[in-house]
């Protein structure tokens, strides 16, 4: 199959959805001529015009809220927040409006909107451009949270998100944009709530999200050289979460590492660990281990930033520790 980047896969998803449905419109900063700071929307303004691909002023509360209003009245907006850090300036619109309307209105009205944004450190952009805040949105009932780790899933999950009648926080990872993988040309969807088993193993399960998936696969390879068999599970959507696939793997291995680039405290990994403790504790042969970002802001200085990012260097000691139980 042809290989394209994660970025191109997202671009293709937007393109195909826009071609198929006039209600799909894009709002965001510098997404038109500029193509978005990561080039996800490149070429779409030329193809669909300025009416459907709109460069908006810096007014996140305004244009995210406008997305909610448009979605409520028949459009399918895909709104881009340049960096997830900037969701902080439009939290009311996301948390109190976009997520809540369908419920508050007793099922009247729907908000079929996608909010695309990205997480991740590693580009030397410090504490206000590198945060991984996905867990915040997992705590808001009414929102779906998609977290693609591969180009295939990026395209399939985005098409699913756009066609889904619910508001979706679509969380990309800036380090993944340039990664390549197999992606079909045709229009297809990846269902929400279905995890992928990225690598089968029998000794230890790693549940990994976004960029942690590849890092877990790299660690699994190193572990194999030491005779430790690691299974890697990628949930693909954090809400809904495929508990069954995770728990089945834990039941098989009895040892689990949960790895997410968000902070350790109250992060996605904390939630998944709690589910395992609640529903599969009798299968555990060792404590659940979280490999996440430390509870510090993201530092600028390159050596500190490298130390901050959870990686193979943090996964390996965890694997070795669990192997000893």
């Amino acid at each position, binding site marked *: 199959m042809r290989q394209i980047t994660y970025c191109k896969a997202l671009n293709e998803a937007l393109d195909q959805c826009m071609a198929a449905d006039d209600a799909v419109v894009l709002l965001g*900063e*510098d997404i*038109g*001529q*500029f193509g978005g*700071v990561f080039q996800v929307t490149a070429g779409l303004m030329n193809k669909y015009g300025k009416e459907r691909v709109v*460069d908006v*002023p*810096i*007014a*996140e*509360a*305004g244009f995210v809220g406008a997305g909610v209003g448009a979605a409520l009245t028949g459009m399918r907006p895909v709104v881009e927040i340049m960096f997830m*850090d*900037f969701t*902080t*300036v439009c939290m009311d619109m996301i948390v109190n409006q976009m997520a809540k309307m369908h419920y508050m209105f007793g099922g009247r009205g729907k908000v079929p909107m996608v909010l695309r944004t990205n997480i991740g450190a590693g*580009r*030397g*952009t*410090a*504490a*206000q*451009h590198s945060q991984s805040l996905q867990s915040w949105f997992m705590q808001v009932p009414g929102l779906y949270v998609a977290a693609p780790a591969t180009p295939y899933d990026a395209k399939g999950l985005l098409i699913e998100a756009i066609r889904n009648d619910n508001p979706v926080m679509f969380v990309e990872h800036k380090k993944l944009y340039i990664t390549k993988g197999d992606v079909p040309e045709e229009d297809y969807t990846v269902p929400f709530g279905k995890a992928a088993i990225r690598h089968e193993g029998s000794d230890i399960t790693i549940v990994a999200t976004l960029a942690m998936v590849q890092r877990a696969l790299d660690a699994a390879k190193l572990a194999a050289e030491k005779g430790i068999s690691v299974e890697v599970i990628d949930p693909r959507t954090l809400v809904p979460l495929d508990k069954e696939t995770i728990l089945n793997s834990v039941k098989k291995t009895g040892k689990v590492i949960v790895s997410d680039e968000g902070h350790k405290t109250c992060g996605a990994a904390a939630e998944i660990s709690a589910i395992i403790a609640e529903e599969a504790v009798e299968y555990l042969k060792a404590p659940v281990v979280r490999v996440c970002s*430390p*509870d*510090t*802001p993201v*530092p*600028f*200085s*390159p*050596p*500190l930033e490298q*130390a*901050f990012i959870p990686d193979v260097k943090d996964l390996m000691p965890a694997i070795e520790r669990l192997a000893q139980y």
Partner: protein
Amino acid sequence: MPIEREILLQMYQSMVTIRQFEERIADLYARGLVPGLAHLYTGQEAVAVGICSALRDDDYITSTHRGHGHVIAKGSKLNEMMAELFGKKSGYCKGKGGSMHIADMDIGILGANGIAGGGLPIATGAGWSAKWRKTDQVSVCFFGDNSSNNGTFHESLNLAAQFKLPVIYVCENNLYGISNPHENQTPIRDLSVRAMAYDMPGQTVDGNSVLEVFEAAQKAAKRARAQEGPSLIECKTYRWRGHHEGDPNQGERYRSREEIAQWRKKDPVERFAKYLIKEKEATKAELAELDDAVTARINESVEFARSSEFPLLEELYHDIYVNEG
């Protein structure tokens, strides 16, 4: 009233320092010595210098992602700045903040900011504090044309006007927000008219004339110190370089080469040099001597930054909370 020669020469020196600092950063960035993002101020020197020349050391400023010029004009130390941009421990933020977060409480620099519009309420609060503490300090807020579309702009101006806070809002209208030209951000051409909505004086000045900016700033500062309330100054100028270093061809994707060339002809530094010579405030040779002295200081700062150490890894965990010991 004529401006003292000493002040004029200080202004010139400050402008040259910004120009040379930025040119050096462009070079260091291209050689991979400065990590992360560097948004250069080249071409806008007259704004920072004109405004800060009307301030005292104990007055406050808040700055932006494009902050090097503001903080140099306010008197920050080049060694510490350069070291911060290299991510070194001897930098202003111990390597934790980088280019977008330079702060120096000793001389009223309340931080550059990675959030567009983030500085507006903070400067407003600093003005409020000066009022409570009954000092006659002034608080200046620098922000870009596109950042003024953020809700924080309107909320801040309303608060400051309602409570007669000693704040000067300085909009640097360099005609673009990343790729988004001013005419696509807002239907009004002069952003200073927004002052009318908050019943405060609003003025648009030539942001490439340091003396015109200085005069407006003096008037606003006088008004603020006399407890008469805030002002809005819009400075029309242009950034010579791309949005950040690495923006291809200095932003030719969204603005023409001719436009850039046109503005380069309006060089605020050269223009001021010509003025000083014409008015017999300085000779060509004297200015050249000043330029050389600045170059020597910049060389020294690069040497300082290069020879400084990176922070130790454990420093990742320092400064998250104020030490109560």
